[in-house]
């Protein structure tokens, strides 16, 4: 479905496993991606420290990191594994709510908030990965758009169930109820109250935690991409039958990608949840899943650092458009359509490519000439 251009010649087993990603290309991609994250972090921290960056942008540091991680982890499914997923927000929700519950439990045992945050994020990731496994086993046999609709359905089911979930904590321990309020003692605390969601969350997230999350996600995804495992996944993506014929266990490889992606989304969700004092299930609707998909597609499907940039820019864009007042979201829609057409339309693309090629070749030529002169 995607990246058809990669299939150049009849796929022989050797060619398939030798790698869709060449070693040097991988190194370059990894370098650029890490550089973007670290430099971005450095610049933004510096800007915030010097007081150049206002509260509005500072307040978005953590969400940007979260969306960047989500874009990277979704890229594992959409770009690398080649399956369309419309339910990424569902995994995010699972991770977010389980992370919130875990954080509240940990508050009684551990006093260091960063340790609480870390452990709750790990817990969120595990629960989300488990959800990914449960949904992944039956559905990964489906193809293309049928798989997409099942992931969409999964996201909606999660949101619906979250609407009727109740969690509370009192001296007897954790209390849990389905579809009705828990009668709690006076000295107890509610953690999750159905549609109202989680309230009274202690805000533990920070930009540094966010950038660590993004780096960790990037590390995992790039490693998978460049492992034997990852090459097998991409081989299956490019030609499923050829992959099967050389003995690749299609389901196993796809499931790995799916579960890892779900776990990483859960981890991002847990961090996102602890950036605000409240979290409602409605946040994790179909629209959020689509938004993450937009990052991935706009950044270039399978292109990890492209997704990072797209996620960061598209998170800031609606805020930057606040000047447009009533026309803000309309402008956002128009920008989205135009950017899509400009980046994907073959005619526009080739024209621009030619222009850029001319410029770059001229620069190269000049460099060569000046190089000669020096020599």
């Amino acid at each position, binding site marked *: *479905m*995607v990246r*058809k251009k990669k299939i150049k010649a009849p796929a022989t087993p050797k060619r398939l496993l030798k790698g869709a990603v060449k070693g040097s290309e991988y190194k370059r991609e990894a370098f650029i991606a890490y550089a973007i994250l670290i430099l971005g972090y450095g610049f933004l921290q510096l800007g915030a420290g010097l007081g150049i960056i206002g509260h509005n942008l500072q307040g978005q540091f953590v969400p940007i990191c979260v969306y960047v991680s989500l874009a990277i982890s979704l890229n594992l499914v*959409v770009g690398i594994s080649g399956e*369309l997923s419309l339910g990424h927000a569902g995994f995010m929700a699972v991770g977010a709510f389980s992370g919130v519950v875990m954080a509240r439990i940990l508050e009684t045992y551990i006093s260091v908030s960063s340790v609480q945050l870390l452990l709750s994020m790990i817990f969120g990731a595990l629960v989300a990965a488990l959800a990914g496994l449960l949904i992944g086993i*039956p*559905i990964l*046999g*489906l*193809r293309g*758009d*049928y798989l*997409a*609709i*099942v992931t*969409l*359905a*999964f996201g*909606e*089911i999660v949101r*619906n*169930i979250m*609407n*009727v979930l109740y969690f509370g904590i009192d001296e007897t321990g954790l209390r849990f109820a389905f*579809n009705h309020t828990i009668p709690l003692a006076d000295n107890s605390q509610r953690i999750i109250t159905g549609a109202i969601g989680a309230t009274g969350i202690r805000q533990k997230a920070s930009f540094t935690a966010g950038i660590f999350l993004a780096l960790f996600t990037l590390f995992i995804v790039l490693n998978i991409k460049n492992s034997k495992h990852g090459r097998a996944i991409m081989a299956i993506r490019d030609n*499923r*039958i*050829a992959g099967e*014929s050389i003995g690749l266990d299609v389901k196993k490889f796809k499931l790995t990608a799916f579960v890892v992606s779900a776990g990483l989304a859960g981890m991002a969700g847990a961090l996102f949840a602890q950036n605000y004092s409240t979290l409602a299930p409605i946040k994790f609707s*179909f629209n959020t899943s*689509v938004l993450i*998909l*937009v990052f991935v*597609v*706009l950044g270039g*499907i399978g292109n990890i650092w492209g997704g990072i940039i797209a996620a960061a820019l598209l998170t800031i864009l609606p805020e930057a458009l606040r000047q447009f007042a*009533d*026309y803000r*979201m*309309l402008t*956002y*829609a*128009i920008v*989205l*359509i135009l950017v*899509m*057409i400009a*980046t*994907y*339309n*073959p*005619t*526009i693309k080739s024209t621009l490519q030619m222009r850029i090629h001319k410029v770059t070749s001229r620069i190269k030529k000049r460099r060569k000439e000046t190089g000669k002169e020096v020599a």
Partner: protein
Amino acid sequence: MNMINSLISGLSLGSVYSIIALGYTMVYGISKMLNFAHGDIIMVGSYISFCLTTYVGMPGWAALIGAVAVCTVLGIVIERLAYRPLRGTGSLSVLITAIGVSYFLQNMALLVWGANPRVFKSLFKGLEPIRLAEGQIIITAESFFTIIVCVVIMVGLTLFVHKSKAGKAMRAVSEDNGAAQLMGINVNQSISLTFAIGSGLAAVAGVLMCSAYPVLMPTTGAMPGIKAFTAAVLGGIGSIPGAMVGGLILGTIEIFSRAYISTELSDAIVFACLVIVLLVKPTGLFGKKISEKV
């Protein structure tokens, strides 16, 4: 008796889903794209019809024709401006563009018609409901006509696709775009026609839906759009009878799970049914089995 009443509302809701799903499925069949802006065309159609009856004073049927006309043109224009430049670049890029178009339509509606919801005047206002079994079974005029219209559209569309020249051309394009072109079929025209028909049907669905459930807001089309998309997949996306049956099944399940299981979880149940059906029949009820070539 309750069972029958629920069945009737289920079929009526299902008919609306069916008509919307037809648009999804036809567009998917011919251009392999998921047109997520389809739900918002429903909303535009309903608003146009509302404005024509309320501000211009047209009778309901004339307003319906007006809405169909506007949406048909809108469908063609959207395809021409937003989707055609991306044809052949993979379904994901068009999917995202469609989402952009959806945001655009919703926010345009917000600017044009404002955030205040409107209450839609039923197309069948004043018609008495049909009462059976001493008034225990009530079939409202809206339900009755929605189901009838759905059947008529279904039959008409099947005839059109199988008997008429343009319909055959559409089928040829959805079967094999390249070969159709070689046979002298104007592919662009066929695709435009598909969008036109799909959008026109969306306007009909919008008016029928708002007649039964009268609230009209810029986000009115979003949820029915997703549900209808689900229905189209349930029936096997690309298949016209599939969309019809998928819609009816989905509507009925939705109403029954609300009536007999849980109102809180009805959406979850609907989506769970979809997952189960797809696990048993991976290409939907009427979907074609795709044989892959190496």
